[in-house]
């Protein structure tokens, strides 16, 4: 447990630093908000519509596929540590797991799921 203490120090320092960086402008900088100053600029006109464009669904698909392969990698982590102790059976179970996911990978590749226009 004590080996995580440096991480905690890191957390405290990063938290403190970000709070300082965000908080000091609130204190130091002059803030006189004015309707003209904070409104959106659209070449002098009032804004027609929300500034956001339509969000493409391909991002979602990329994120889902990332999750799936991320989980595959997270299963690889303990396996790589104990490979010496689980002998051949453990090796072959992992190979089977990777084969099933390779099947999914082939499916995804042929469908062109990650092709971006």
């Amino acid at each position, binding site marked *: 447990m004590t080996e995580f203490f440096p991480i905690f120090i890191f957390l405290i320092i990063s938290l403190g630093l970000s709070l300082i960086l965000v908080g000091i402008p609130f204190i130091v900088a002059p803030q006189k908000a004015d309707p003209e100053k904070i409104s959106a600029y659209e070449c002098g006109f009032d804004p027609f519509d929300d500034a956001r464009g339509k969000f493409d669904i391909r991002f979602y698909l990329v*994120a889902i596929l990332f999750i799936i392969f991320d989980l595959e990698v997270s299963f690889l982590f303990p396996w790589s540590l104990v490979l010496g102790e689980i002998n051949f059976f453990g090796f072959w179970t992992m190979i*089977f797991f990777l084969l099933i996911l390779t099947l999914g990978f082939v499916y*995804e590749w042929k469908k062109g799921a990650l092709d971006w226009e």
Partner: protein
Amino acid sequence: MNLFLAVFAALGISSSIMVIRANNPVYSVLYLILVFVNVSGILILQGLDFFAMIFLVVYVGAIAVLFLFVVMMLNIKIEERQESMLRYVPVGAGIGLIFFLEVIIALDKEFVPLNPLAFTSLDNDSALIPEYLHWGTTLGQKTGIEAIGQVIYTYYFYYFFMASFILLVAMIGAILLTLHNDPKVKRQEVFEQNAREFSRTIQKAS
């Protein structure tokens, strides 16, 4: 150590309340990330370091990112949420109270006292608190990640295989539901282009 647990738990619970109470949905997702980070801290305190890392990598790094994508895709404007939350307070509080009572009933109970003889002294008729032998500390130490690894790939390989099937279904399902191949887009078939033979591409036509 108790201080850490108290801080993480308090931050976790308040963040989870803020997840449902925040106006902006992007703020909700950011508070959800804070919940995950606090839970990850609690897991480290419990000695489950592997799970803490997995929480951060998978939950925050993948799932919260996915949530953000979906929230940005839905583009919920803040002014659209007009309904008041107060309508749900009676029923919600009632159900929450029932849940809470059920957890209290089940809390700190053991169905099987491990060793009836290893009780502490029976003075002043206090409830019998069994004393356990912590087997884990009597043997050689193994890290959590190694303990998981030794078991999940050998004895409980069935769970491991089921996880792979679930991931396969998720892949097929996600692609089936969201992939939209626009027929107007011209794509290249690299292998066909490379396999073209010059002698067959141009033919005399007369």
